[in-house]
């Protein structure tokens, strides 16, 4: 097991290196310069160069890369150009915020959507099936940021029930924190329920066509037992892969929702850092996101055999 995890992580190393090189090169080729951004219209000739020198940006690219990646290997992701904060703690900090929201959203979405999808499949073509399919297709078609704006407009602005912007860490004040994450989480839950419900439905239909389901019925099991004991695990396995995919892509793609609700998460950090050309943060975040992607996939692969013993980890 440990060996498997280690080999999997090792096999991700080339991918991570490729990502790191790509990010590094791309950031340097994008016009715009952190030193200039810092000085703005106050810059005079020479000052930008001096600033670049101070930031170590005057060295050859290859050197810069090697220094950076060397430091990363020793766990030092460097410091933000803009405000000198240490990159790794900053990323972890922001990641904590994003992951709370994403995990919560994906969890709630799965708890709602998987049973709904399975139920729809079991009662295929019934009214409840049609309504589940219609709802999930509609949800699938609504842009998350628009839905977020609409919810914000209704619950924050007109009804005034919920706070609109900002974030309070759960560790500080649980009740308060919960209020702040309701809208973003609800938005994500709604948006992500669509694909998950559809997937759960499709794979349940697939499974329910198989012989062992009939066999379970032939044993005299009740419908409930057939669904729960025989259909669930098998139908859930492919859905799990999708949930893993949603999780992985959300963690890197949450920037939009974080922008709508001004949540200081990882996505926002990345976007702001890109705009500020804060190289160490962009590079660190990208590497981190790629790593998370690898880890999420790994976790899915580790959980999968529990649901489907034919697949060995």
């Amino acid at each position: 097991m440990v060996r498997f995890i280690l080999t999997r992580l090792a096999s991700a190393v080339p991918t991570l290196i490729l990502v790191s090189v790509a990010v590094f090169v791309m950031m340097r080729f994008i016009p715009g310069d952190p030193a200039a951004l810092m000085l703005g219209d106050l810059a005079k000739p020479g000052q930008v160069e001096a600033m670049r020198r101070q930031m170590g940006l005057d060295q050859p690219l290859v050197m810069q890369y090697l220094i950076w990646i060397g430091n990363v290997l020793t766990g030092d992701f460097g410091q933000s150009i803009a405000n000198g904060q240490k990159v790794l703690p900053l990323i972890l900090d922001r990641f904590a915020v994003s992951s709370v929201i994403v995990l919560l959203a994906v969890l709630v979405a799965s708890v709602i959507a998987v049973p709904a999808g399975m139920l729809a499949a079991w009662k295929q073509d019934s009214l409840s099936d049609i309504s589940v399919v219609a709802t999930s297709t509609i949800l699938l078609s609504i842009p998350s940021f628009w839905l977020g704006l609409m919810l914000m407009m209704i619950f924050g602005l007109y009804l005034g029930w919920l706070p609109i912007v900002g974030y309070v860490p759960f560790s500080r004040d649980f009740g308060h924190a919960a209020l702040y994450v309701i809208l973003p989480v609800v938005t994500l839950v709604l948006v992500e329920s669509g694909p998950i419900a559809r997937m759960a439905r499709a794979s349940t239909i697939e499974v329910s066509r198989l012989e062992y389901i009939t066999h379970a019925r032939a044993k005299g099991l009740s419908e409930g037992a057939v669904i729960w004991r025989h259909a669930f695990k098998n139908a859930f396995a492919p859905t799990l892969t999708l949930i893993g995919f949603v999780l992985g892509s959300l963690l890197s793609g949450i920037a939009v929702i974080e922008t709508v609700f001004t949540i200081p998460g990882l996505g926002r950090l990345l976007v702001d850092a890109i705009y500020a050309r804060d190289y160490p943060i962009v590079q660190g975040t990208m590497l981190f996101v790629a790593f998370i992607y690898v880890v999420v996939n790994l976790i899915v692969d580790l959980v999968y055999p529990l649901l489907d013993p034919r697949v060995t980890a």
Partner: protein
Amino acid sequence: QEQPKTGGTLKVRINADIRATDGINRDANTDTVLHQIFETLVAYRADLTTGPALAESWKISDDGKTYTFTLRDGAVFHNGDAVTSADVKWNWTRRLDPANQWLCIPLFNGSQGLKIEAIDTPDTRTVAFKLNAPNALFLAQLANVQCDSWVASPKNAGADGKWIADSAIGSGPFKLKEWVKGQYIDLQRFDAYKPLKEASSALAGSRQAYVDDVRFMVIPDTAAAETALFAGEIDVLPGLESARVEEAKSRGMTVLSTPGLSWTAILLQTKDPLLSNARIREALAHAVDINQIAAARTNGVATGDPSAVAQASSFFDNDFLKWPEYDPAKAKALLDEAGYKGEPIKIQTNTRYQGMYENAVLMQAMLTAAGFNAQLEVLDWAAQLDNYLAGKFQVQSFGYSARLDPSLMYGVILGDKATDPTAQWDNKEAFELYMKSMGTTDPEQRKTLFKQLHALMIKDVPILGLYYEPSIDAVSPKVKGYTVWPAENTRTWGVWKSE
């Protein structure tokens, strides 16, 4: 008006987190927050003259080369230490050390004329600055908000002489309580603060604080910040878009505005093959109705101002509004004369700054109407800034941050394009007039110089000044005693909250 009362928390929006507390790694948000915690010797009044802050009074020697300041009676740092002249000297020694990369070193080391030759500390409350030559702008530069030349306790630095990260022991009316990176900065009223007698005006005079706490909340998104203000989650929204004034008022917010100092301008690359033709530039000037743009952009709050002298400035009079009048027909005629054949003119802009973007859109519409083939090129702000620094543009929609003296604004746009691509106006004669305005202390004489500069500018049309961004803040109706001033920095002293 009701009586000030103490207590409560004032929540102020900033659009990005501050960078540091050392005054060297800075930006506009950093300046705003740190000026609540620290004090400069002298500071700007609302009329842009300099008044007392940490120094309660000062004397200028007859030769105009020595400035002697007396520190405020009873000024103490947040750690309880008294503020001494030695502390002042320590701060200046630190700043003037080139290794520290202070933004404003060139203003004080002689590279732009002014040089501090020595700082003497005759007694604990007296500090004297010796200059190389008399200078009209010395006090203004000491007060310069962006320079952050405030006096901090030497205890902010560790044994190695380096600033301790996030340390902020100042002498201002608020002390730093907590900085949650990326989210907010909490300040707490400093109860041992002894305000000056002089009435509060902008950053100068009394800094009597009333609220218990101030929280600067980081809300990057403008729309979200407005929503937060309307929902009562913040109390002060500095820098309200003028287009949003009506909306804010209709929601019961108090909106305060005053003419500002940030000059919104359209940059013209005079070295561009097409735009090097003065006739074409003149045509451009005739094609653009700066008053209409100003009115549209600021909802009628500001009027057009083509000169480097702001309406808010004490040097301003109507002569500075002279400019080629809006006349599309004349623009067309000039274009024909110049042999313009529809060569494209690209206007660079960005969506990071709504104003620059909207000005570009309006410009494009007006230029098109006057027969130009104008196109928009929307860039990332960082990319546009790169182009600005390298002079790589034909036309760029731009905005200068607040300069509190006209000389400073002329200083930004004047220069030799060969050595300084950020210079917009390459004119020897103008440059000499500008140098003269720096060395002259008599206001009337300086005003005459500025008028001569503007007359030259009308002839050259090196840049298309539009208007000065008005300084507009929206505050919740509970907030009392809040004022705005031409430079946009928010002040949280003198403000209290009613129920």
